[in-house]
């Protein structure tokens, strides 16, 4: 008897919750977590959908949505076509972000140092070991570079940021592509690892001569010393929002399979070379169509109203055409 009452109360609580706000659960990438959190707050007030997002990492997000333990998964690295088909998932992008190199060299201010992708790959391969190396000096004739050992710092934990950064290195250096490759964690030939963006930022701040890479939002908030990079067009660009947007716009969205567009080292004359989209994975055959519809409603709201929130956090909103294409995919591919 007691048990039955208890069960009734539990059921009542569970059923009562959606009456106030429709709950949706998601898990995955840490990179877009700040913007999803802000969108969640705003959407709860605007459309009555409460987002419960757990930033457990892209790999974890993929595992969870493939097991269908959450309503949607989130991943920085796009899942390849055959795997999406096999696991019956629809993949679509939400926002884009940039990864920026940060340095700690005495006497060098933000965006003064100019680097090329090749050089960054050589530094992380342990081949260029001093800041006054002839190759670096040749790119920076106006700067006095100290005879200081270069200390490369990377993300020790598996991360989407590492995936984006190593994708860039693999795109600009064939040697990096052959010897190391691109993944959420790789076999680093040189340097030290630190945990998370904050760990990399703090280590670079502490170690004289260090170079690291973090998400742009993190570098801006903590006023880290970023550098310029040479893009595909041969121009040196500083990591600024217009340069990121230029990269996003020069991406080949039309021909990208499953929206897995490559925004690394795009051809635009003012493009920042390390930009990437982050993705949502949604089941095409949802167990609970209502919750799946709520997920789509949430991101529909975010596309329309979330751009300012995203831009405030230094993320790059999706181009309008891509948003409309995603909306069309929802209609055609998700069983209601």
């Amino acid at each position, binding site marked *: 008897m007691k048990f039955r009452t208890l069960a009734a109360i539990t059921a009542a609580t569970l059923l009562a919750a959606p009456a106030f706000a429709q709950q949706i659960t998601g898990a995955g990438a840490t990179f877009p977590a700040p913007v999803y959190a802000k969108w969640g707050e705003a959407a709860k007030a605007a459309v009555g959908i409460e987002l419960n997002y757990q930033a*457990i*990492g*892209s*790999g*974890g997000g*993929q*595992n969870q949505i*493939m*097991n269908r333990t959450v309503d949607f998964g989130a991943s920085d690295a796009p899942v390849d076509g055959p795997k999406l088909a096999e696991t019956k998932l629809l993949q679509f992008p939400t926002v884009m972000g940039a990864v920026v190199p940060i340095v700690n060299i005495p006497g060098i201010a933000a965006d003064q140092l100019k680097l090329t992708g090749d050089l960054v790959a050589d530094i992380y391969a342990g081949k260029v070991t001093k800041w006054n190396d002839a190759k670096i000096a040749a790119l920076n004739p106006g700067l006095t570079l100290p005879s200081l*050992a270069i*200390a490369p710092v990377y993300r*020790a*934990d*598996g*991360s989407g940021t590492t995936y984006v950064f190593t994708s860039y290195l693999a795109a600009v250096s064939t040697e990096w592509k052959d010897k*190391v*490759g*691109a*993944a*959420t*964690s*790789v*076999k*680093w030939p040189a*340097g*030290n*690892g*630190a*945990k998370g963006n904050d*760990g990399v930022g*703090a*280590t670079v701040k*502490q*170690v004289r*001569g260090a170079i690291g890479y973090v998400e742009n939002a993190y570098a801006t908030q903590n006023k880290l010393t970023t550098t310029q990079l040479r893009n595909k067009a041969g121009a040196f660009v500083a990591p600024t929002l217009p340069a990121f947007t230029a990269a996003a716009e020069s991406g080949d969205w039309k021909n990208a399979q499953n929206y897995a567009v490559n925004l690394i080292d795009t051809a635009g004359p003012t493009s920042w070379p390390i930009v990437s989209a982050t993705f949502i994975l949604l089941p095409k055959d949802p167990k609970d169509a209502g919750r799946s519809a709520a997920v789509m409603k949430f991101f529909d709201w975010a596309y329309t109203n979330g751009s300012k929130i995203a831009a405030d956090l230094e993320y790059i909103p999706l181009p309008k055409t891509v948003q409309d294409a995603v909306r069309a995919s929802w209609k055609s591919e998700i069983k209601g």
Partner: protein
Amino acid sequence: MSQTLAAPIARASTRKSSTSPGDRIFAAAAKSAGVFVLVLLGAIIVSLFIGGWPSFRAFGLRFLVDADWDPVQNTFGGAVPIYGTLITAVLAILMAVPLAFGIAFYLTELAPIWFRRPVGTAIELLAAVPSIIYGMWGFFMIVPFMASFVQPTAIDWLSDLPLVGFLFEGPPFGTGILTAALILAVMILPFIAATMRDVFLTVPPVFKESAYGLGCTTWEVMRSIVIPYTRTSVVGGIMLGLGRALGETMAVTFVIGNTNRLSTSLFGPGNTIASIVALEFPESQAGSLKLSSLLALGFILFVISFIVLAISRTLLRPGKTS
């Protein structure tokens, strides 16, 4: 240990089984609670082994000695984290034991009585500090100190020495194996010191008084009476500290440098089993060889810790101290 415990229980249950059903039910419940621990332990070992099996099958015994950890090529070897785990734990013991001995010696023989209690309490409080605090303290205080003072000095003066020079090579990052061992030493110090103090206090006063009566100095009493009397328990306490050092995760992650390359230098970065599992686990796909390799590493750590703790339990068993 389990046998000495189990025997009286068995006797008690046979004697009382004839009396009332309540007693029988209680005996069964108590027995199942005891068995539950064994089953749980076994289940953890078995599930870790099953999880790690694809990796053991793919790499064989080479997994233990191969230093190549490459998620892109899908080849995994556990040598770097296994080496890192053992070397940091051993170095930590080497640093902590003399200090712990000094503390215990001072507290039991030299310190004024009124002073013993506050210092003893402070040591016990040190054991209660969460490991993440040690990690943060290590990262923000010890790492800069190592990077700007200890390591540059050691590299300048010692790296050109014959035979041992290779231990002090490399750029002064501040992080690395020695820094990790230092943090671990501070973390395990209270365990070892508290055990030593407790076992030193078990020495019957009459032994010590006899020695003093023969004209021994305090140090002679310590060396010839207290240490021989408590030797096995002291070693047991050290093993207990070693067990903690082997499994420590967060504090080590902060300061070890997290690289999967073998480094002979004490200032070089490394990795430990606990640290690599914590860092790589979230980005490991279900069913992947990487996940299996991490579970295999977990199994190896379990076996190492199990051996260490088993030795410590055997040595700490009461009645073996004489």
